[in-house]
């Protein structure tokens, strides 16, 4: 590499460092009001906050996270809502996280919901069987495509939030094994579909 090439690279590197520093300082509009504004009680449901454990705290970092135990009728649901606007890396592919926690994904199917579709994962660990549903929501559209979620957040970051509202990840885990009637979820916990 001749000295001219080295000068070009050095200039490019300095520009990249400057841009990276500036970009990092620009705050993005988050979804805090949507996430924290979700109803804690309502017709047919109650809830209580669940504290994050140390591992979760380290993973989520500055991301806005709500973890709550909802009781709707006789069913209990652990609901986790993550707004990754302040730490995009807090939002992972839920299937990947479940596998990391020792679960096997035995199957998955789509869940129709207001504004789009979510995904239901069937989970197995030993003799235990569970289900979990997740979706991404920007307040208007809902989907369960992880790559699309990444693209949405990347585009927001590049446009300083002009590309649309911050998408949040909603994860719902019933505590009663695999007998949940998912189609009833929008009527049981309507607040989840207003995020």
């Amino acid at each position, binding site marked *: 590499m001749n000295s001219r090439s*080295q000068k070009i690279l050095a200039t490019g590197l300095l520009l990249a460092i400057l841009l990276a520093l500036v970009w990092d300082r620009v705050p993005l509009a988050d979804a805090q009001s949507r996430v924290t504004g979700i109803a804690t009680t309502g017709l047919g449901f109650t809830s209580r906050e669940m504290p994050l454990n140390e591992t979760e705290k380290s993973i989520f970092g500055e991301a806005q996270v709500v973890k709550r135990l909802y009781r709707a009728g006789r069913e209990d649901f652990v609901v986790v809502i993550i707004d990754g606007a302040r730490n995009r890396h807090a939002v992972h592919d839920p299937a990947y996280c479940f*596998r990391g926690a020792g679960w096997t994904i035995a199957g998955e199917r789509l869940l129709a919901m207001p504004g789009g579709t979510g995904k239901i994962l069937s989970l197995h660990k030993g003799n235990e069987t569970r289900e979990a549903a997740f979706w991404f929501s920007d307040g208007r559209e809902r989907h369960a495509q992880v790559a699309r979620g990444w693209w949405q957040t990347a585009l927001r970051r590049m446009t300083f939030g002009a590309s649309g509202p911050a998408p949040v990840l909603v994860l719902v885990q019933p505590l009663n094994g695999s007998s949940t009637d998912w189609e009833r979820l929008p009527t049981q916990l309507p607040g989840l579909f207003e995020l």
Partner: protein
Amino acid sequence: MKTEKNFPLVGLAVPLFCAWQARDLINAWRHSPHDRLGWLALLVWLAPVARRIAGKKRAELSASFILMGAAIGCGLAGELTELHFLGHVALALALAGWLKISFRSLAWLLTAVAWMPVFGWWLAPVSEALILPLRLALALAGAFCVWPVKKIES
């Protein structure tokens, strides 16, 4: 004080910039069950670069302008989009910049996924116990691609 090796400063600065951009790797290797000990695959994959730097005289050491430039671009894109994967690719490109570009070195570059978290994500349905051996096997295959082999005189 003169050093034995005379690295072009920018040839060191670019990998350092990219290593900073890819610092999340440490967290992934420490905490993610699918990525645990992934740094071993990086060491294996990196062996040809270490060998080249150790074996060359200072006048012969030169980094690739194209790969270093691509590394800067990729690292910046990773920062702007907040996609860790791009930061990892940038680090691979910056390290690969120390080898001569050839079909074999490009094949070796592709095997850099062996130490990246994306490899664990792709192989998430596979048993965790298999992922590290697969990482090492891929990194080793990549290293063999560019490892200099002495011709046997007949």
